[in-house]
């Protein structure tokens, strides 16, 4: 156990060193922003190395913090560089016109089977893919409402754990489902972030 952990730690530190070296070398603002993501992922690797149930609980806030910082900084970059007009439609790939629905459905379905945090991430990727291909009319209010309700359910599950431990199975399922919807909603917002009137 210990040697494996040390090995992982060594790899993580080495990756961090690479990331920091890249950041020191890079001078372009946008590229530095992209490189910080490299650092964020190493951070998650550090937490994942703990390798217990606790690690999963700790990764979620770590990831949320990372994503929110990334979004906030991209917004600042956009404003400070004066990019206030939404970009023109960029990617033109055939599969994005023909297959988004089935790809998204497969990913969301698989995510629901997994449930919990990784399930949410996979389902979220499906929704992102769908929005990237089709998302002309994103319905932000709906996504935000779903996300809010799922958060409430998550909190309810927490209180169930504390106050009525005998219903733990119900609480686990509730928390798993809620976190699935929550992570999915948050990730799908990234897919929809392309400026425009809603941004």
């Amino acid at each position, binding site marked *: 156990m210990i040697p494996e*952990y040390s090995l992982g*730690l060594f790899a*993580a530190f080495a990756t*961090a060193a690479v*990331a*920091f070296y890249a*950041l020191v070398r890079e001078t372009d*603002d946008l590229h*530095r*922003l992209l490189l*910080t993501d490299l*650092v*964020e992922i*190493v*951070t998650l690797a*550090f*937490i994942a*190395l*703990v*390798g217990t149930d*606790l*690690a999963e609980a*700790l990764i979620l*806030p*770590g990831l949320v*913090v*990372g994503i*929110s*910082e*990334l979004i*906030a*900084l991209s*917004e*600042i*970059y956009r*404003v*400070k560089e004066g990019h206030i007009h939404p970009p023109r439609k960029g990617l033109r790939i055939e599969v994005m016109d023909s297959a988004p629905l089935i790809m998204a459905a497969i990913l969301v379905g698989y995510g629901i089977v997994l449930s919990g945090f990784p399930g949410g991430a996979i389902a979220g990727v499906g929704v992102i893919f769908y929005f990237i291909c089709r998302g002309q009319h994103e319905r932000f209010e709906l996504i935000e409402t779903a996300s809010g309700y799922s958060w409430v359910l998550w909190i309810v599950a927490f209180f169930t*754990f*504390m106050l009525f431990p005998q219903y733990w199975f119900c609480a686990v399922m509730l928390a798993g489902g809620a976190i699935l919807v929550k992570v999915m909603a948050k990730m799908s917002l990234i897919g929809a972030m392309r400026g425009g009137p809603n941004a």
Partner: protein
Amino acid sequence: MLSIGGQDLFVLEFGDILHYFSPYTLTLFLLAVLFTGLAIISRPEEQIEIAFGGDAYYAKETTLPEMRFRRFMAIACGLASIGAMVSGDLFNYTLFTSMVGITNVGIVAAVKNRHVLNAAYAYGIVAMIATLPLFGSAALIVATTGTLSIPALAAGGQAVPLVGKALLVLGVVGEGMAPFYAAKAEMFRAPGAPYVIMCSLSSLLIFLRVVEIVTTI
């Protein structure tokens, strides 16, 4: 528990999440509450700027939507600092600290001034990078000792690795203190004193708290 900040006054246990007040953390907590209150009830000032090379001067106005957004961010920053002051859990502390980093950027992000935005961006990059040592230290400590509770770490015989402590301080410095010299002085030029003051206050408070944490565990 006799901690470095004086005799414990009050311990709030919520499941395994623990908050405790020593005279030291209580002082910091009250200051965070006080300045958050000031940020809520004060209106921004009109900063007077002198046009270079002449006698002309003009007042910078803060628009209402900008003020609302920045006040919200300042309150969020205050709440994050309050959380960081009373948390008895190392990971919660690091989480609150990183939240302080984000909200500090947010407080000045609505200012439409290129210098301020540049400074905020530079600071944001540093704050983002600093999450690596910050969360890394918490993960390292939980992996080697098996607990994140500060009182347990203080009482128990587990040896907290020195590198964990060093990374924690480095992370907090990155989130709050280090950008003082690089970017924050520029950020402080932004009008809206009640909100801008939360930037420096929150950095200061998390730094004061990490000194207590590192010497205690």
